[in-house]
């Protein structure tokens, strides 16, 4: 009983490592899709005159990584850029009315 437990404890992680599906590495198609989504959101933010510098930097980092073939990094940076762009779009939209709360009257 005792030995079988020890055996199970040893085998479990080995099986987990060997049989569980490993996280799939990003490929060029993933990068292109993530970049296109980020680029579209970024352009929308720029059109609203509410672009953030960090969005531009994240997009540039995504492109650089993608051009270098590091698609994992490129996808991560593109997703970050998309999230930042969406936050800036939210800011632009909410500030259309929210600025009035700050006004000196």
């Amino acid at each position, binding site marked *: 009983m005792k030995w079988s437990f020890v055996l199970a404890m040893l085998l479990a992680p080995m099986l987990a490592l060997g049989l569980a599906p490993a996280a799939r590495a990003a490929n060029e198609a993933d990068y292109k899709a993530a970049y296109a989504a980020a680029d579209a959101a970024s352009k929308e933010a720029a059109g609203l*005159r509410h672009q*953030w*510098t*960090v969005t531009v930097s994240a997009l540039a980092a995504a492109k650089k990584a993608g051009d270098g073939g590091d698609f994992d990094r490129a996808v991560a940076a593109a997703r970050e850029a998309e999230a930042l762009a969406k936050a800036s779009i939210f800011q632009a939209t909410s*500030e259309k009315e929210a*600025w009035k709360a*700050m006004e000196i009257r």
Partner: protein
Amino acid sequence: MKARSALLLGSLGAALVAFALTSPRVVAADKVDPVADAKAFQNFFFQKFPNVKHEDFVNGPYSMNADMKRQWQEKEEFPPYEFALDAGKDMFTTPFKNGKTYADCFPNGGIGIRQNYPYFDTKEGKVVTLELALNRCREANGEAPYSYVKDEMASLTAYMAFTSRGKPMDIKIPDDPRALAAFENGKRYFYTRRGQMNFSCASCHVQSPGERIRAEILAPALGILNAMPIYRSEWSGMGTTSRRFVTCNSQTRAVPLEPQADEYRDVEYFLSYVANGLPISGPGARP
């Protein structure tokens, strides 16, 4: 049944009275009223800092901190913008290739007119800043325009500001809906949060003047443009109003607009108008 009707009529009457009392206020709040805005703006700062002389607000952080003011007053004996003033005077008086000078482009030969800029051009339907007018003058005389954020423009505006020192800011808003719209647009820009830091101009210069942001003491928004252009120790050089707006945007992690974008022209119009009556103190020096 009678009591029910009376209650219903009473409620209806009360609702009508409430509507009648509140609706004019809503209309008034939405109406563009630069005079009321300027009065409220100035009163806010006068009440927030009752010990600061009104004309002293144009000295920015020095009006907020006695130690800094002493240091600045000593520095003013050999001001860091002196070289820019000399260069500006030289540039201003040197004829263009066609023989004309800047004086030919401005009322009163360009001397002592800084307090009237920016103005609303009713022909163009837009705000015209001094920097823009200077570049238009250059282009009209066959010269290439200067960068809005570099030394030449700062030197020229420094000299022109110097000739207006002590004159009260005197910005007019003509009876033109486009001028009112420009003022309102400038006000909106001033109070709108932007950038990843989620800061508006007002976050620093209305909510926190006199407070420190890192090593700096924040200047009050009231009269902030009266000292432009400025020599900034942080920049190791002169800076124009355009440079100031661009830098402020970058510091909040917002992508700056192009210099002399409509929004920048309008915010300059708004900030200058609400400082009407306060003296021109430019060129200034800041840490």
